[in-house]
C-alpha cells in the first residue's frame, strides 16, 4: 500500500481529533522544551563565550571555534576513535540480537524461553557505573580472568591498559549489555510472521533450518533496516557511559571519544569549543540518519525506511 492512500483527502480534521491532539500535546511540549529550545544554546559555538558577559554579550567569532577544534590534535583523534568504536560495535554487534532472537525462537519450552528472555535483558537496566565496576574487577590485575591466565602458566596480562584488549572488552561487554534488549523487538516481529508460511514450507519439505533461512530471516529484514538506520544516528556517540566509567589515561589513545573530549573541555570551562564539538557531532549524526533513510527508500522503491 502506498503512503498516500492513508492520507485523508483534505487536511487533517482537527476538530474531530481534538482528544488525540490533546494527548499528544505533553510530548510535543517535552520535545520543544528539552530538545529544541536548548538547541538555541548552539549560538555559543559561534561566539567567544565568556560567562560574565552572558550568551548575548559575548562577541561573535564566526567559525573560529571550529577551526580551532580541527587544528587541535585531540579532536580529530577523538573523531577517529569514535568512528572506529561505533563501526566495530555495529559490525560485531548488529546481528547479536537477531541471533539471540532466532535461538530463543527455537526453544519449545515456553516457560524456559520466557525466563531466558527476561534474564538476557536484565543487564540493560544496570547503569554502567555498576557494570564498569564489575568488569574492571573481572579483567583487573587480581581478577578471575587473570587467575585463569596464571593457572595456564602465562604472565598476568594487563587487559585494561592494553589498547587492543581494552577495545575488545568495550565491544564485547557492550554487546552483552544490549543484545537481550535488542532481541525484544525482533521477538515481536517474529511473532508477527504468519504460521501459514511455515505450514506451506513444511509441506514443501523444508526443515527448520531451511524455514529459518527462507521465511524467518527475510521477515526480519524490514526491522533490521529500521534499526540499522536508527543506529547510524548514534554512530558519533560511541557509548559515553560505558567508556567514561571504564577507561583510564593509558588507553586515551584509542578510547578518547568525542563525548569524553567534550566533557573535558566543559570541565576546562572552554564552553565555546565544547559546544562546537557537540554541534559537529549532532550535525554529522543527523546527516547520517537522513542519508541512510533516503538510501533505504531509494533501493527499496519507497517500501522501507523509518519515515
Amino acid at each position: 500500500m502506498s503512503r498516500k492512500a492513508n492520507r485523508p483527502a483534505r487536511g487533517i480534521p482537527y476538530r474531530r481529533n481534538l482528544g488525540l491532539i490533546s494527548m499528544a500535546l505533553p510530548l510535543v511540549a517535552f520535545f520543544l522544551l528539552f530538545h529544541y529550545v536548548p538547541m538555541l544554546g548552539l549560538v555559543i559555538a559561534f561566539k567567544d563565550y565568556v560567562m560574565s558577559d552572558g550568551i548575548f554579550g559575548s562577541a561573535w567569532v564566526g567559525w573560529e571555534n571550529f577551526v580551532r577544534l580541527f587544528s587541535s590534535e585531540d579532536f580529530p583523534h577523538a573523531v577517529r576513535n569514535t568512528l572506529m568504536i561505533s563501526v566495530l560495535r555495529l559490525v560485531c554487534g548488529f546481528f547479536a540480537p537477531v541471533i539471540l532472537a532466532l535461538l530463543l525462537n527455537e526453544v519449545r519450552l515456553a516457560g524456559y524461553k520466557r525466563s531466558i528472555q527476561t534474564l538476557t535483558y536484565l543487564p540493560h537496566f544496570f547503569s554502567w557505573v555498576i557494570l564498569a565496576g564489575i568488569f574492571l574487577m573481572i579483567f583487573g590485575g587480581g581478577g578471575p580472568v587473570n587467575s585463569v591466565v596464571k593457572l595456564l602458566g602465562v604472565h598476568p596480562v594487563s587487559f585494561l591498559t592494553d589498547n587492543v584488549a581494552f577495545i575488545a572488552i568495550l565491544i564485547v561487554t557492550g554487546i552483552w549489555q544490549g543484545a537481550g534488549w535488542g532481541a525484544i523487538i525482533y521477538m515481536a516481529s517474529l511473532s508477527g510472521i504468519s504460521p501459514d508460511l511455515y505450514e506451506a514450507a513444511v509441506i514443501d519439505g523444508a526443515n527448520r533450518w531451511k524455514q529459518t533461512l527462507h521465511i524467518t530471516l527475510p521477515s526480519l529484514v524490514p526491522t533490521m533496516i529500521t534499526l540499522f538506520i536508527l543506529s547510524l544516528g548514534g554512530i558519533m556517540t560511541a557509548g559515553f557511559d560505558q567508556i567514561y566509567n571504564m577507561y583510564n589515561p593509558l588507553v586515551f589513545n584509542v578510547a578518547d571519544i568525542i563525548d569524553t573530549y567534550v566533557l573535558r573541555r566543559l570541565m576546562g570551562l572552554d564552553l565555546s569549543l565544547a559546544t562546537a564539538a557537540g554541534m559537529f557531532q549532532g550535525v554529522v549524526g543527523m546527516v547520517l540518519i537522513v542519508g541512510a533513510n533516503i538510501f533505504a527508500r531509494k533501493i527499496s522503491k519507497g517500501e522501507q525506511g523509518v519515515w
Partner: protein
Amino acid sequence: MKQSRGEKLFHVANIIVLGVVALICLYPFLYTLSLSLSSAREASRDGLHLYPAELSLTSYLVVP
C-alpha cells in the same frame, strides 16, 4: 512431528547455550545483591562475590 538426530542435538545445545548466556546476564544482579548484603570489609575485597559474606544489613539501614 518427528525430529531428526541433528535437530535433537541442536535443541539440547541451544537450551544449554541460552542457559549459560542467561546466567552470565544474571551475574551483575547477583553481584550487587551479595555486595549490598556483605559487611563493608568484605565488600571492598576484590573477587567475584557470588554470595554475601559476613552477612550484614547495615547498608540498607544507612541508605534510607
